[in-house]
């Protein structure tokens, strides 16, 4: 009896591990194929679907501007207040401009924008492709001799990789505005003083590291959405499950990748 339970216990762990490894293997394959169709295949004369890419860019990017901007503004305010609170006793309130500027451009701008898009667009990708899978639309594509990777995945990944960094720039700017807002109205710092302090503190590298990160986050969010969508089985319930998984996995991967990046940039740059 006891050994039976133990057996079941280890069997379950084993099965889950194998399933997990299998999923990672499948996911890596999808990423590999997507990158191939995005970067290598165009050199061989396969065209990229720009029309469809632009449609997705509007869906992922333009439509997300209000929510991303609002959140970035709030984050700027929160960071500003936190910084001011800690710097004021030293009479160094003005340095809040440095703190807000650097944290927003290097860390919070890219990460929060990516998380918003994981919830808003990554999930939409998973749900849309999952529904197509369930209603045999993807099978229909394949029987027409159309490969779903260049046809469906590439436009989504490409548009995400263009729009997420662009949105990140907007978030950076609006986040800094949020800090400025606190600086002017709560700390009574002169606008030009704050502005000059910010430009002095920020270097191009801060934006660049942020943008590199957001490019990688974009690849993660879009490919995880595609993978979960293509993996749906078992009707509408399966679509729901995979959509949730896509959001949770994306957010986890964004944060994990960010740790890796920050470690890397911190030690080398």
């Amino acid at each position, binding site marked *: 009896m006891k050994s039976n339970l133990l057996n079941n216990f280890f069997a379950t762990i084993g099965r889950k591990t194998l399933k997990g490894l299998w999923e990672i293997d499948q996911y890596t394959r999808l990423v590999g194929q997507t990158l191939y169709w995005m970067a290598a295949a165009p050199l061989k004369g396969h065209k990229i679907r720009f029309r469809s890419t632009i449609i997705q860019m509007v869906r992922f990017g333009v439509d997300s501007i209000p929510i991303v901007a609002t959140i970035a503004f709030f984050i700027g305010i929160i960071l500003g207040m936190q910084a001011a609170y800690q710097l004021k006793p030293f009479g160094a309130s003005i340095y809040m401009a440095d703190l807000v500027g650097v944290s927003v451009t290097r860390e919070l701008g890219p990460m929060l924008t990516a998380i918003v898009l994981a919830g808003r667009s990554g999930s939409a990708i998973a749900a849309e492709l999952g*529904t*197509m899978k369930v*209603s*045999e*639309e993807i*099978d*229909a594509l*394949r*029987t*027409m*001799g*159309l*490969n779903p990777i260049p046809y469906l995945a590439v436009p989504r990944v490409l548009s995400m990789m263009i729009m997420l960094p662009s949105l990140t720039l907007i978030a950076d700017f609006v986040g800094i505005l949020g800090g400025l807002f606190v600086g002017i109205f709560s700390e009574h710092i002169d606008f030009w003083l704050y502005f000059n302090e910010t430009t002095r503190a920020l270097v191009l590298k801060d934006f660049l590291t942020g943008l590199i990160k957001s490019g990688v986050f974009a690849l993660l969010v879009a490919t995880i959405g595609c993978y979960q969508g293509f993996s749906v089985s078992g009707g509408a319930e399966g679509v729901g499950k995979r959509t949730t998984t896509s959001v949770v996995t994306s957010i986890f991967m964004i944060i994990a990748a960010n740790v890796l990046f920050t470690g890397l940039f911190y030690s080398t740059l």
Partner: protein
Amino acid sequence: MDKKPIIEIKELHTYYGRAHVLKGINLTIYENETIAILGRSGCGKSTLLRHMIGLNQPGSGEILIKGKNIPKLNEDKKTEVLKRIGMLFQNGALFNSMSIADNVALPLREHTDLEESTISIMTRMKLDLVGLGGFEGFNPAQLSGGMRKRAGLARAIAMDPEILFCDEPSAGLDPIVAAGIDQLLLKLKQAFKMTMVVVTHEMASVFLIADRIAMMNEGQILAVGTRAEIENNPHSFIQQFLHREPDKDKVDRETFLQNLTSEISG
């Protein structure tokens, strides 16, 4: 008669997980013939079709279309074969994000260099054929189930395929429209010399359009032959199927009602 094989299936086995779904299918389909695949719900008809169009990888066995082993072909070669094939899915499988016209036009846009104006004329022609003229701008969600199926058929024949696969083309259609679909399939066969593989439960349409019938049961092909050959086949399942008899162990309607009344009164 020198009949040329166009599809050859050899010792095809398939598993879904542990379930052994296709158990050694052998079937040869000849050029320009219409073959009807009959069998009970769940016996593996759709699965067999999916293998023929390369959507599923078999556990073992070969599927040759014009001599090419479909499961072993690389992406590009498979695409070349698929361009000459049309498939009507059991549920239509239309692209829900596109209008009916765009659904039908998609393969033409992707695989030909035709002018947009030519494509639009061809699209309208195919939709007229299936009786959906005037519905070009509709989305799949705005159509009835039967209309979706007909739109799926229009899309399947958009490229004038050599081989047409139909998974229950007339299921869920009213008898008049179903008869229309039968006429259309007959026309495709006679005028365009299409080879057709049709899964259906409609005996009337089987007898009308099929040159040969393949009877499937539990993942195997029991018999293949002309209508007369199948009708004279002594196999009990085939006779049961053709004569619409219920399973023997199921109580018939009279006894069921009797049991019910005696249960209520007693």
